[in-house]
Structure formats: structure tokens, C-alpha cells
């Protein structure tokens, strides 16, 4: 699996002729096979960070290295799951997955692609729905298809941009469990953007906390809980509560520290 190295990454946007710094001197490393969550409030640039990793936006300054090589544009070494519109609405679930496979495994025949797509849809529990269009699936099911596609593409790295942000609480729990289970199987390098602290703790090896205007890394923290993790047992422990509270207080301190001077948007 691949490593990701982000060095002094700065990203400026020009919006209405005004320069706007989305990210300022962001540096951190993601080790091979590591699951890292990036958390922060809206506007802290965490999605911008991911778009640079995806290759959609270029860095203004600094660099992003994957296995030592700078990222130039999008690539088949990275699979992506967005919050919305990961899937093409005009393709069925099965064809969406097969379309992704086609981009990375060009040697496979159509029948082999379909077979592979079916096996991954089976993994996410959607065999019955494989011939449905995204509009006929619930939001949670759509994200399952998107995950199936990202995994079926067999990339070294998985980038996820608030993938469960728009899903109701019950389904979100189910999706987190599913993702954990699938990740344990493949142990890909994952960068997972979220604003949900519990989600970040449950899923990740390490949490990168970001703060806004301009977006920068505030603190990195290792998640001290062993795997495989059981959500129900984990949340009942005192360690979990303490750990969770410490993360919240970091954010709280950060906000109160800045509240006098700048406007803070939660």
C-alpha cells in the first residue's frame, strides 16, 4: 500500500477577484495501510485538502507526494467516495461499479467486469438492487454502491469526503461498520474527511484536527484503541469518554482562543 506525504501545502482560491487562502502550510503524513481521519468545522479546508489529494485542485504552494512522487492530476492509484454524486445517475448500480473497474483494470473483458462488480455489490449487501438506478436507491444504498465501486477499482489509496454526512444516524452506523469490516480485509491507506468526532474515533488510527481561516493542521492525535473495535463496548469505557472529551476540548480551546478577534463560523 501507498504512503501519502503532505508538505507545507498551501491552496489559494480566487473568488470574485479576491484572493482567499483555503489551506496554509498544511503538513502531515499518512503511513501505508493507515486509516487517517481529518476533522474540523465547515470552512476549515478539509474538503479542499482532499480535492488536492484527489488531483482535482492543484496546490498553490508546497507538495503532495504519494510514494515519494508528486501528485499531478487525478490517477488510478486513488479511489474516491464523495458525499454526493459519486455515482452516475444514468447507470445502474452494477454498471456504475463496472464503469469504475473499467478505468483501472483495462484488461478485463466486459463479462469479467460485470462479475467483479456483482461480487463487490454482494459484499456491500446490494445484490438484490444491482439493476436499480441511483434514483431508485436510498442515500445509504447509494453510498454502499460508491464504496463498492471504490473498492472494486482496487486502488492503493481510498479518499473519502464526508461519505456518510448526508445519511441518517441509523444507516450511518451500519455504513461505518461495513466500512470498518471491508477495510480490515483490504487494509488500504485511507484519508477520511468528517465532522463527526465519534465516527473519526471509531474508524481511524489517527485523527488530524484542522482549524479554519486559513485552514491549517491544529493537532494530530493517535487513537489509542485496539482493533477490531466494537462500537457498543468501546463507547461504554471511561477511556473512550476521556479521549472524546479531550478532542472536543481542543476544538473548544481553539475557538475561545480566537473568539475575540476573528469571526468564527461553526
Amino acid at each position, binding site marked *: 500500500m501507498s504512503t501519502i506525504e503532505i508538505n507545507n501545502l498551501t491552496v489559494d482560491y480566487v473568488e470574485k477577484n479576491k484572493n482567499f487562502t483555503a489551506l496554509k502550510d498544511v503538513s502531515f503524513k499518512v503511513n501505508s495501510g493507515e486509516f487517517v481521519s481529518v476533522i474540523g468545522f465547515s470552512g476549515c479546508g478539509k474538503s479542499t485538502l482532499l*480535492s488536492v489529494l*484527489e*488531483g*482535482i485542485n492543484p496546490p498553490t504552494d508546497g507538495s503532495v507526494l504519494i510514494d515519494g512522487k508528486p501528485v499531478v492530476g*487525478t*490517477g*488510478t492509484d*486513488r479511489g*474516491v467516495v*464523495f458525499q*454526493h*454524486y*459519486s*455515482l*452516475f*445517475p*444514468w*447507470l445502474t448500480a452494477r454498471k456504475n461499479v463496472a*464503469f*469504475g473497474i473499467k*478505468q*483501472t483494470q483495462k484488461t478485463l473483458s466486459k463479462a469479467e467486469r460485470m462479475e467483479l462488480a456483482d461480487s463487490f455489490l454482494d459484499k456491500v449487501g446490494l445484490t438484490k438492487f444491482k439493476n436499480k*438506478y*441511483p*434514483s*431508485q436507491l436510498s442515500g445509504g444504498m447509494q453510498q454502499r454502491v460508491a464504496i463498492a465501486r471504490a473498492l472494486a*477499482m482496487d486502488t492503493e489509496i481510498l*479518499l473519502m469526503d464526508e461519505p456518510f454526512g448526508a445519511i441518517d444516524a441509523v444507516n450511518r452506523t451500519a455504513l461505518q461498520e461495513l466500512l470498518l469490516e471491508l477495510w480490515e480485509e483490504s487494509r488500504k491507506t485511507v484519508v477520511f474527511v468528517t465532522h463527526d468526532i465519534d465516527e473519526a474515533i471509531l474508524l481511524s488510527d489517527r485523527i488530524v484536527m484542522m482549524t479554519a481561516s486559513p485552514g491549517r493542521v491544529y493537532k494530530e492525535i493517535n487513537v489509542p484503541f485496539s482493533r477490531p473495535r466494537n462500537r457498543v463496548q468501546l463507547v461504554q469505557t471511561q477511556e473512550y469518554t476521556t479521549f472524546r472529551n479531550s478532542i472536543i476540548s481542543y476544538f473548544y480551546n481553539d475557538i475561545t482562543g480566537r473568539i475575540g478577534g476573528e469571526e468564527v463560523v461553526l
Partner: protein
Amino acid sequence: MTAKKRFLRAVNFLFIVLIAVQFLPNSELKEDNGIYVIWFSLIAEAAVILVSLISKKEQGLNLFSDIISFLYALLILWTIASAKSDILDKALFPPPGDVFRQFIEDISKILLNIGSSLAIIVQGYLLALVIEIPLGLFLGYSVRLGNAATYISKFLGSIPPIVYIPYGIALLPTFRSVSVFVIFLASFWPVLSGTMSGVLNVDKRVIDSARVLNVGKFSMLFSVILPASLSEIFVGCNQGLSVSFILLTSAEMIGANSGMGYYVKNYSDFGDYTRTIVGLLVIGIVVVIISFLFNKLQRFFLRYKR
């Protein structure tokens, strides 16, 4: 639905009235073609009964029977005003029976003319689609060219295509080729601008999700942008098709010796208004059938939208 609801309908009452009206004495002694109206209404009524029997949704049945009721009412008034009284001028308003009879007599001639019109439309229209859709995709996707093309197409698209006809006649050898050329130009701008605006309105998130899949340029245009902009492309194609019909029939009235426009114009020149009305009705029916089929096609292609 109860049997009462199914069969006790205004449409069936109007049917009886329509049949009865045919047996009234004619206002003057001339051949009576009322039997053709009776045959027509029998067929229509058979359809109504069939639909009443098999229809599951009340809404669909209501719509169908309302349309047929309207048709019956029109035929009743038309029969009374033309055949059974002197309200309307006989030469200008032939009774419906005459029109039906003329239609049956002329059916082979009519089919030939429809065929000739449709062949021209299909050629010009398909030519436009084959050229315009890829061009529109390309222009819409390339920002700079697209901006320029929008202005150029606004200018050229504002010229009513019918004014190209005289120039087309000078340029091209036959009336047929001129017609194909004019249809091509008529569908050109609606299809091009529909495609371009479709491409420009594709959700950026759809494009991003295609980009992260690392699709090539060709795939991006034809497997992503094309399906993503398909509904607006269809809007353009629809406009192009209706403009094509308007233009073709106009062109046929100017200088053709075949086609539905020619049929109408030719017989009205001779004062044969029975055939003129036949021609008008046939054109209406053809256009309705084509737009129906076009809609089916559109629904099939956009079936992923619930």
C-alpha cells in the same frame, strides 16, 4: 371501478347522438356520405369500449373518453352545420362524411406524400443530429470556443431558416436537396444550442466524480457529458423537430410536386376543399404520431429519472 362508472359515460351518449344525427334528412338532395361517419364512429366506439374494459386506472380512461367525446361533439356540430342545414357554405365546409370518404379514396396517394415528406425530414434531421450533438458536446466542454459559439449561434439562429430557401434553390440542384438542406439548417441551431447548454449545465460534482475515476477525454465526452446533458439535448431535438415540420410543409407549398404541403396547396388551388381538409387533418395526425414516438424514445433514454 364499478360497471356503471365504466360504461355509463358521456362519450357513449354522444356516440348515440352522432349516429342518430346521420339519419336526419339532408338539407339538399345530394349524395349522402353519412355512412362513412358511422363507420368511423363505430371504430372509435369499439376503441372506447375496449379501453373501458381493460383500463385499470380511472384517470387514463377519463382522459381517453374525454378526448373521444370532444371528437364526437365536433362531428355532431360539423354534420349538422354542413350536411343537415345551410349554416355553412358547402364548397368551403364539406360535410365530415365527404372528408372521410375522400381520405379513403386517396389513401395511397396520401401515403406516398407522407413518405416523401418524412424521407426529407429524416434525412435533414438525422444529418443535423449526427453533426450537431458531437459538435455541441465539444463546444460546450471547451470553455473558450463555447463562449464564442454561443454568440455566433445566437446571431445565425435568429435568422428564420425559411429565408435560406431562395439561396438554397440557387445553390442546390433539386427541390429535394434544397428541402433536406433547409431542414438541416432548421434543426441545426436548436439542437446545437440545446446540446451546448446541456453540457454547460452538467453538475460540476458529476464531472469531478468522473475525473477522479480518471476517465479519458473521449469517455468523458461520450460516456459522461453526453448522458449527463441528455435531457437538454432532447429539448433541443424536440424544438428542431417541430421547426422542421413547419418548414418542410411551408417549403412544399412553395415549390414541390410531392409531400403533404404540396397536397394541401395543390388541391386548395383547384378549390377542392374536401381534399384540403383531408390534408390538414392528415398532417395533424402525422405530427401527433411522430411526437408520441419521440416522447417514447425520450422516456426510454431518460428512464433513470424517476
